[in-house]
């Protein structure tokens, strides 16, 4: 399970290779093309191409029937019913290959999101470290140890109703630093990235919560006996600018990989 949130060396190397590219836009474009191609090929190999072709043709036939027999309402309604059934059949045929496609692409995207989802904290810019504890008593015991490059810019705020403490901090120099929080006789660290182009960012460190950790954390789990439940840093979201319009990399990837997929499916003669 840890492997899911801590990628293997090979995987990390591949991601690092992408990270060598300094432009997030370039990364998204290259990634979209590669993923578009791989997914189409994978879909082609894992699907029943003949059955999908037939299902799509049947759908088109019923669509044409609506047009050809437009003055015959029973035929139009019957064709509409067949279109719905045909769509169900088509989705059923697409389900198995989709499973093969979804799993690797999800794991890949989780990792890419570590690099492209947020920007690091700018030098001397304030940021918040939020710590959730399991019980209210731990709030009073919690203490924060900072490296010399990080300074506290305001006293911590205790939100008792939510078992939460918030520190306002600031980093003076580029780098990756560990913020140590002690509570209940134990200490736990949270990494924070200050400055840099495309560092691997983890917004939150969690105790338990496997699925949430897999999708949103790049750090190991907080020990189970720790009174601390989570530690998070509010990194700013990264917007990639295209023609003056900023958007999250996921949406850009979604659109570009679809376009690439459509192009490759035509070139490779694969039915989707």
């Amino acid at each position, binding site marked *: 399970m840890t492997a899911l949130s801590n990628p293997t060396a090979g995987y990390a190397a591949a991601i690092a290779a992408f990270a060598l590219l300094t432009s997030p836009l370039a990364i998204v474009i290259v990634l979209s093309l590669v993923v578009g191609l791989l*997914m*189409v090929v*994978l*879909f082609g190999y894992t699907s*029943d191409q003949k*059955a999908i072709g037939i299902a*799509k*043709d*049947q*759908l*088109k*036939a*019923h*669509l*044409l*029937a*609506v*047009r*050809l027999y*437009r*003055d*015959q*309402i029973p035929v*139009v309604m019957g*064709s*509409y019913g067949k*279109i*719905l059934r*045909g*769509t169900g059949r*088509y*989705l*059923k*045929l*697409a*389900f*198995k*290959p*989709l*499973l093969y*496609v*979804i*799993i690797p*692409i*999800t794991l890949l*995207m*989780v990792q890419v*999101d570590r690099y492209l989802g947020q920007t690091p904290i700018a030098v001397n810019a304030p940021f918040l470290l939020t710590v959730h504890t399991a019980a209210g008593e731990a709030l009073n015991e919690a203490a924060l140890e900072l490296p010399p490059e990080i300074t506290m810019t305001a006293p911590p705020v205790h939100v008792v109703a939510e078992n939460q403490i918030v520190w306002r901090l600031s980093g003076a120099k580029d780098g990756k630093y560990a913020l140590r929080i002690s509570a209940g006789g134990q200490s736990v660290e949270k990494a924070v990235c200050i400055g840099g182009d495309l560092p691997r960012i983890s917004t939150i460190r969690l105790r338990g919560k496997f*699925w949430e950790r897999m*999708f949103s954390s790049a750090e190991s789990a907080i020990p189970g006996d720790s009174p601390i439940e989570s530690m998070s840093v509010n990194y700013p979201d990264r917007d990639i600018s295209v023609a003056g319009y900023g958007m999250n990399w*996921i949406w850009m*990837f*979604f659109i570009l*990989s*679809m376009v*690439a*997929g459509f192009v490759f*499916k035509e070139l490779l*003669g694969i039915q*989707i």
Partner: protein
Amino acid sequence: MKRLLHCERRLFAGGGAHATRVLLIALIFLPALAHAYAGPGAGFAVLSSFWAIFVAFLYSFYALMTWPFRQLFRFLRRRNAYGKATFERAVILGFDGMDPELADRFMKEGRLPNLAKLRDKGTFRKLRTTFPAISPVAWSTFMTGVNPGKHNIYDFLACDRNSYLPYLSSAEIKGPKRHIKIGKYSIPFGKTEIKAMRKGTPFWHWLGDAGIFSSVIRVPVTFPPEKFQGVLLSGMCVPDLKGSQGTFCFCTTRASNDKFREGGVRVPIERKNGVCRSYVPGPDNPVKENAGEVRMEFELKPDVGSKQARFTVGSEKFTLKVGEYSEWITAEFKAGMGFTAHGICRFYLKELSPEVEVYVTPVNIDPGHPDLPISHPVTYSIYLAKLFGPYATLGLAEDTWALNEHVLDDDAFLAQAYGNHEDRERMLFDALDKTKQGLCTCVFDTTDRIQHMFWRYLEEDHPAARDVPHSEHPQVIQDLYERMDRLIGRVMEKIDEDTLLMVISDHGFKSFARCMNVNAWLHQNGYLALKEGKTESGDWFEDVDWSRTRAYTMGLNGLYLNIKGREKQGIVDPSEVEALKAELQKALNGLVDPASGAVSITGVFIADNVYRGPYTENSPDLIVGYGAGYRASWDSVMGKVTSQIFEDNIKAWSGDHCIDPRLVPGVLFSSHKFIEEKPAIVDVAPTILKLFGLALPAHFDGKPWTLATKAAAVTPAS
């Protein structure tokens, strides 16, 4: 589908099943980001399917919302279309060439229970055919209700009076007039022109004008398709992708310089390192001048031990055993500059050892991507292709030439013919489901082709089957009639008492055991002269001396006079024409075959006496009616003059109907009784119009039949 379910079950089985299931559920149901992670695959699936639903919904909504207005409009324009109709629906099944005598014989033998039921409950009559009794002529008369003088179809071929060469009588296809020249390329600019040569108005146009919908499937001479209210798939006379009426391709490693007489081309297969390479010839290159035909290359890897070969044709790969057909394969002929002709063809692996031989059907126009219109609306052929898969579109789809030339054997031909027939049946039943009111008509060619090719087995001593003992003759024609009877039974299950079911044929059938070359007779009797020193002439009158020729024959039944002022090199003075016609009629009528003593010609008909209308000038001058057992020789049809007048017909094409029309009437079966004793095919159109309560156009030659009683629904025989 079973396989898919099995895979899903397998995926969810085993030790990691729970974790996998949770992971998948998590991936699918975790919010926004995870949905986006589903990536292009999911995107395609979702977008494609919802696009289909969206379009369907929009169109259904439009159709529903506008339906009352359209109905109101129609009502105001024509009142109630079915208000005076005797039946809600008419279903006409055309069984090309079904013979009344054979049908009667097989009914008496108990082979055709459903046809017998129609006979007993409704009508069974001989249906008088046209002069001549040829399918394009008779079906044109069927649909227009007029004689050939008004629809202009007298044969498959017509004669160009300037060149004495034949041309297709039903349609004229001309490429775009303008071309743009860029270097070696000459890019056509504009549309291909397809001109219908058949005149007259099919009766489904009259029905459409009255608001009555029609589904018309594969009726001959409906190419190019014309606009009307209904759907139509063109039949006989649709060309192949080369523009011919069907050119098969025979690829072989056997060295031979022989050319097929007609209908096919021989293409060499090159064998190298265990791989065989060859090609399928396509249409002439439309963008490069003098570049010849465009070709589609293919290769096969024989596995002699398992008697099969792996084919690669374009992007398609498939394996065939010896004696097996492929599915329809997409054939794309790329001419350059982005011009691609789209066709479909089937491969048949004939032999693998010691030689490799592959037969390829004529390249049909791809119905899912038609380069020429083969249906009305154009989307109808696409609709059928999407619904049922690719299907034969060529007018003469059953490759009789390949069987004649021994490229296909009997079984291979039958497999091909019945494959096409099954496609046609699927189309018919879809049309029956979609046409609950109006006209539904479908013509099946299988009956014609199989009788042409297997009549030899019906007789004891047919020249084309003398090598097979009579006791071993297969019952191909009996099986055919039984199969058609079962089809009628299935149609009966789909109809009620408000549907009129008619089964008709355009002509009957007789043996074709002896060939007669009328050109040879004309030559030997001084009506046709050859060039000095010649005793025979090649194809299309190559060695005929027109300056001394008074008469010639071309096509199946037409005899032409070489008239001064009409033919380019005419010599017969118009004042002598009537006398010459009478002279030829007298000389040919009752002509006896000296070898058998049988009458080879039982009637010679002067065109002026049998045709009337605006197009009679295009007809032959005389129609030759051969006796039973005789027909125009293969050479005579192609304008060849031989030294022999009579010869045995030893080709598989052993039955025919291009004889004296009085000897080959068609059939009429119907589910309701008509009182006419001698109905004719020309009467069908007026009868249908009358039954739908429409006025008959004045130019009709046919007379509507009178219904005796409207009977209860006919049900299939148990």
